[in-house]
């Protein structure tokens, strides 16, 4: 049987950072991913990575305050302090690995402005920062010769009671199913954006890790907090970076007005993402949009600056909607972008509380978008997600190595676990062709979620989405897998991913209905204000043996910033 001290699921930035840390310490570590590492969705982060560098006159507490305020006071302040304090060193680590950050005139790292922050502290590589960091991290993975199970799909966590002892996974090329034993398992499997349509997220973002942990008994936290990014392209919903507005681009309505004046007179286009997305939605609904969109206007930045710093969004705007952003404004609208919620972890990535304060899964760690530490709370600041991946990727590796040093492998029957997963897969293959195709069912779910859990929400709409999603569980059992083969059966994998997405969709809707206030990205027209008296708390959802879901609450950790009115 394959066996490792530390096994990392997912090979995006959080996963690779974790694996790298473990490999550098000499641990027996491996990564497993359903795609080659450089295909991961960290690629799509465009604008940059935040860090307060003291030698630039910045202070991590200022970054932390902006993050707390951005989170609408739902973020845990102990975790935010950790992230912002360690940001500078981690940024320098990335540079030392070889990331080609843009520079100032003296050759030091250069910054650009980003939303929701009072200082320019976003370090960047043109508008391909995520790709540039991801590929350099992969260079390091090659340097340290980390074992990678490329194109393997994990279908279940191996559990004994409350303890995780590895995973069962399918090697996609052969269709063979294997157990991989691990003393500690780190989930770094990314977000669940495909639960919605449209979405900026890649097709692989199906919430697999969240679902695996949830089914194994770990709680999901604050799942209702789904970020709508203000600038996603008309039609496909592909992302156009906030860096465009950071460089000075305007948002305009059909009258040519910079409408953000009405909603955020100080920060204008650089208010927090939830604020800008709501403003756009309000404008569009009031009839000031154009064909369901408003416009992002980059023209005044000049072609030279656009080609140097925003060349990728120039490329996709041209390719996908035929607009040359140096000459014309491009139609955009708010689109689902990021899951602030996720698997509840502590600041070292643990999905359980060693002191017993809350129940989770021992031996399991999580980092990056799949986790909820929580540093983003109700709304993530732009360029804090790349930071989150590297900070908590590294920390979870340290936690996992410590756990692996103190604990033995779990004893289990390899064949029992493999056979039970094979039987589940065979179940899909045995379905006749009377049911729904996978894509049809996903689309029905994703459209229902878009309708019920949009930028503005109400009890009735969310309930309707929840009922629809729960109703799809029966249809899901009969879902049609046309490919009956073994090798590279992507059809079967999509069917399994859809199961994960249904778990996430349901949790998002339940969390949304439960939180009876408006906070961060969760904006309700039936509870229009933030209710600090009753809702300064996280919502934890736990899956029972059947389909029932139980709710728990945890207080928000406040260290130095009391809730205040949030204005930009």
């Amino acid at each position: 049987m394959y066996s490792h001290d530390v096994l990392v699921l997912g090979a995006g930035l959080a996963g690779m950072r974790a694996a790298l840390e473990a490999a550098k310490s000499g641990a027996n570590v491996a990564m497993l991913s359903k795609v080659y590492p450089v295909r991961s969705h960290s690629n799509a982060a465009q604008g940059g990575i935040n860090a307060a560098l003291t030698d630039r006159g910045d202070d991590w507490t200022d970054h932390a305050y902006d993050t707390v305020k951005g989170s609408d006071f739902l973020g845990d302040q102990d975790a935010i302090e950790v992230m912002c304090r360690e940001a500078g060193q981690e940024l320098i680590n990335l540079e030392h690995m070889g990331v080609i950050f843009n520079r100032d005139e003296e050759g030091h790292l250069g910054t650009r402005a980003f939303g929701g922050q009072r200082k320019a502290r976003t370090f960047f590589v043109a508008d391909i920062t995520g790709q540039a960091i991801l590929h350099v991290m992969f260079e390091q993975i090659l340097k340290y010769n980390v074992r990678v199970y490329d194109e393997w799909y994990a279908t279940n966590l191996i559990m004994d009671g409350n303890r995780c002892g590895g995973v069962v996974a399918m090697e996609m090329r052969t269709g063979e199913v294997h157990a991989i034993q691990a003393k500690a398992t780190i989930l770094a499997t990314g977000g669940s954006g495909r639960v919605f349509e449209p979405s900026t997220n890649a097709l692989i973002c199906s919430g697999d890790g969240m679902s695996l942990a949830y089914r194994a008994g770990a709680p999901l936290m604050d799942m209702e907090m789904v970020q709508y990014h203000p600038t996603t392209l008309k039609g496909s919903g592909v992302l156009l970076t906030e860096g465009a507005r950071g460089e000075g681009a305007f948002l305009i309505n059909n009258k040519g007005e910079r409408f953000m004046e009405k909603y955020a007179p100080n920060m204008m286009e650089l208010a927090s993402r939830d604020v800008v997305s709501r403003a756009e939605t309000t404008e569009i609904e009031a009839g000031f949009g154009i064909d369901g969109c408003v416009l992002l206007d980059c023209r005044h930045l000049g072609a030279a600056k656009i080609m140097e710093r925003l060349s990728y969004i120039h490329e996709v705007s041209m390719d996908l909607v035929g607009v040359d952003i140096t000459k014309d404004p491009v139609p955009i609208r708010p689109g689902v972008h990021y899951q602030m919620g996720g698997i509840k972890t502590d600041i070292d990535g643990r999905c359980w509380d060693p002191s017993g304060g809350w129940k989770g899964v021992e031996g399991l760690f999580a980092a990056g978008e799949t986790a909820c530490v929580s540093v983003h709370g109700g709304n993530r600041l732009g360029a804090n997600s790349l930071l989150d991946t590297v900070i908590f990727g590294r920390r979870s590796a340290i936690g996992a190595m410590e756990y692996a040093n103190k604990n033995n492998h779990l004893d289990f029957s390899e064949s029992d676990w493999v056979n039970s997963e094979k039987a589940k897969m065979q179940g899909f293959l045995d379905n006749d062709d009377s049911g729904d195709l996978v894509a049809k069912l996903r689309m029905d779910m994703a459209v229902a979620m878009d309708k019920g859990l949009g930028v503005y929400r109400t009890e009735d709409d969310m309930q309707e989405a929840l009922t629809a999603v729960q109703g799809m569980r029966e249809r899901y059992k009969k879902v049609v897998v046309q490919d009956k083969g073994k090798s590279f059966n992507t059809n079967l994998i999509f069917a399994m991913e859809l199961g994960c997405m249904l778990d996430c969709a349901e949790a998002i809707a339940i969390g949304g209905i439960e939180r009876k206030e408006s906070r961060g990205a969760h904006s309700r027209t039936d509870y229009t204000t933030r209710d600090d008296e009753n809702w300064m708390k996280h919502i934890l959802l736990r899956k029972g043996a059947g389909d029932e879901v139980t709710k728990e609450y945890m207080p928000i950790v406040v260290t130095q910033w009391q809730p205040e009115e949030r204005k930009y």
Partner: protein
Amino acid sequence: MQANVNVRRFNPDEEAPKSYNQEYQVEVDENFTVLDTLIKVREEIDGSLALRCSCRASICGSCAVRVNGHAVLACKTHVSEHLSEDDSVSIEPAGNLPVIKDLVVDLNPFWDKIRAVEPYMQPSLPEPEAEYLAPNDVMLHLVDVMGCIMCGACVSDCTVLEVDKNFLGPAALAKAYRFVADTRDVEDDKRLRMYNAYGGMWDCTRCGECVTACPKGVAPMERIMALREKAMEAKIPTGSYDGAAYGYRHSQVFEDIISHSGRLDETKLVIKTLGLFNIPKMLGLVPVAMNAAFRRKMPPLLHPAVPGVGQIRRIAARISANKRKAAK
């Protein structure tokens, strides 16, 4: 509009697997990319069609395929622009890599080549406390190279790899250039010697297919030429060593012969490049010479100077004088 999409398929699960074409009729609109079209086939018509894709926005590098014989990134290519008069388009897996299933190719040979160039920064040590300093224009230049998404389109259409699997290929050499051009990496000499070996920078034939195929404007061939220039500047190889290519010496001898007689004496070129006593290497070229003779392409043994060779010599002298001036 309806497109007739001809997909090259291959199913390894069959007993005696053979590739074959399958045609799908797909309703597409003007903005449909090749990827949108293939996804529509997979989602609505035939779930058994295998292809890799993820981001839909030309950043993840998953979906390189051949459309009408040329490698493209499926998500960046509008299908309407590639339809023939009868609204057909042919879609095949990327070339130069073994097919696993349908449009999914085995990328292990691709990653092996990437690994072979020591693809990680090797800066001066110990690391400084803060960042390594680097000029912004160097970093901006590197953004264009780091724009490589490792999709393999260049490798698919490389005409050298078609005949010589040992060639590192355009993607790996572009990656190699990223380190040589990075002022923070201090191993240029080691790297240039490494890339100077058989299968390295001198094996590119400058056909330009990789430049056409690259969806991100990385222009791998130009990076390979830039590597050659750096190797020339560094006069690599300065001595002979195992497996070395003779690119630098080849060009020096080439220049000498032309400036002496005004025309290329290919026999002399080989002997002078390899060295008169490099018998094993020259024996290795015997089959090439025999092939050439067989096809009546043997160069003449006697090479009289061209008429007016004095003028050519004056041009050569002027060039080397300019070079000396520039070097100062």
